[in-house]
């Protein structure tokens, strides 16, 4: 009969009207600034640079300015300038470091390709999404100091991924240290009077102070 479909529809909306008052499956709204959902661990927003030590972020950046991310970045939003000199990284090995590392977040499309191509686990995706600013030019161009965040922060936002990365890095460093020690031993055997203690520098260096807080965005 004409109108039965309309009445059926009205019944559905009435059910939803009543249901929205008592059924959490129907009223799914999260009232954002007061209530927040927990971000999934995989959530990504803009990249940040991992530094080993919160007290000296610029000195302990994992980034060695290899410029692979700069090349692979689809929208070309990364700009890197290599250093002329070499500084010891967290493991003590002398490495190049970026004197300039800029990411233009107004161009960045959060695709995560820089993270995937980075061979040094130096760049990771951040989860800070409240990045509104009144200055759309300089405030959105993040430099090295703004991008650097300690490894602990990485652990708080992507715990499982960070644990994996740390384990892998530790293994690599241990292997490198063993190799260096073996080489040193070999060298020492060949030249007993050589300088001792080369192996000490290769100790795993991911132990950052636990009290460091992630910098406010």
């Amino acid at each position, binding site marked *: 009969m004409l109108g039965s479909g309309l009445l*059926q529809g009205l019944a559905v*909306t009435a059910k939803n009207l009543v249901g929205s008052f008592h059924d959490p499956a129907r009223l799914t709204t999260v009232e954002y600034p007061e209530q927040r959902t927990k971000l999934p*661990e995989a959530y990504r927003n803009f990249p940040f640079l991992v530094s080993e030590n919160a007290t000296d972020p610029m000195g302990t950046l994992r980034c060695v300015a290899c410029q692979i991310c700069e090349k692979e970045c689809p929208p070309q939003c990364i700009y890197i300038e290599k250093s002329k000199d070499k500084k010891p990284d967290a493991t003590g090995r002398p490495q190049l470091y970026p004197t300039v590392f800029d990411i233009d977040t107004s161009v960045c499309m959060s695709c995560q390709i820089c993270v995937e*191509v980075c061979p040094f686990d130096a760049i990771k995706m951040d989860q800070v999404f409240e990045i509104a600013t009144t200055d759309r030019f300089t405030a959105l161009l993040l430099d090295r100091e703004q991008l650097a965040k300690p490894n602990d922060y990485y652990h708080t936002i992507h715990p499982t991924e960070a644990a994996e990365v740390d384990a892998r890095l530790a293994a690599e460093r241990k292997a490198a240290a063993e190799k260096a020690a073996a080489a040193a031993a070999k060298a020492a055997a060949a030249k007993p009077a050589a300088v001792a203690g080369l192996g000490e520098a290769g100790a795993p260096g991911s132990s950052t102070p636990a009290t460091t807080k992630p910098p406010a965005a």
Partner: protein
Amino acid sequence: MIASGLQTTGAHVREVHDDFHGDLLEVSMGPHHPSTHGVFRMQVTLDGETIVKLKPVFGYLHRNHEKLGENTSYLGSMPYTDRLDYLNSMTNNWAYALAVEKLAGQPVPERAEYLRIILAELTRLLNHTCLAGFLLQDSGASGTPLMYAFREREKILDLFESLSGSRMMCNFQRFGGCRTDASPEWLAAAKKLTDGYGAFLDEYERLITGNEILMARTQGVGVLKPDLAISAGITGPMLRATGVDYDLRKVDAYGFYSRFAFRVPLGDHGDTYDRYMIRVLEMRESIEILQQAFRDLPAGPIMDPKAKLRGFRPKTGEAYGRIEGPKGEIGFYLISDGTPNPYRYRVRPPSLINLTVLEDLCLGHTVADAVIILGSIDIVLGEVDR
């Protein structure tokens, strides 16, 4: 032509337009219009409210997608494909990955193929749910069906977010597998959503499918004939609504679709109502596919161990990868000259090609019909304009 009931029986365009019969009215609907689904413009010529001419104008969202593809590495184009049809980034990713894998002869592990099917069918659910909501919104239902649709869509987006890190710009497929593996918790959540989706569809259909107003608005409106559909290259649910049995999941059997049992619903009228209902029925089939995929999902690696991420240079050649996207055949055509960037990068966008018949569908109908016909074609301007 005299229509007896609420249904219109066909086009009634007046033959003569001269001073005596009155002027025609030209209305430019869009690019700023509430129901053109983005920056799309319809240059309509009206006789009263009847459309006598309709010229679709697009390109307002042109982003040079294909040329960009030639200047970016193969991997670098992957996140751009998210932004073609931004409702269905998972299927876009898959189509592009398929094309590159064909080009490079890259095998894909079994688990990744299953995961791709799961994600593609979830995307289909998502897209069709949105379409049903938008279509009803266009026919003036004050947002209620749209809100119900978005409530469910949000659940799928949550799944995508927890898997890929982003709700819509997933950037999830890689050449030779998927970026990350789905955890057992994720699979359980996805299964729970799939199990509950049928109930949502039932409620949605109770709300709207039997509604006399909707039937009067959509049945017999915007009829697409099968021969026109075939000659215009229409694909996807829009083609199947005309009764043509053509589903790439069956025809190409790409991925592991040949292992799944599912049916392809076909319409008999090719009108707006059929286009809507075919999508609803496809969602029910998608649920079937998902159930089978969750049941059969094998263990194993998610990424082919030999797949290269950096320095990816496929050998010289060309390849066309296509899949049955929610909107139709989404395909990528690539020519490689051995460099890290493709020599030619071409997208076959279902939205654009399905849109080409808009004028044929709208002639003789009213402005009100044009809006819902456009809604039933299911376009995303990101894909139309590229």
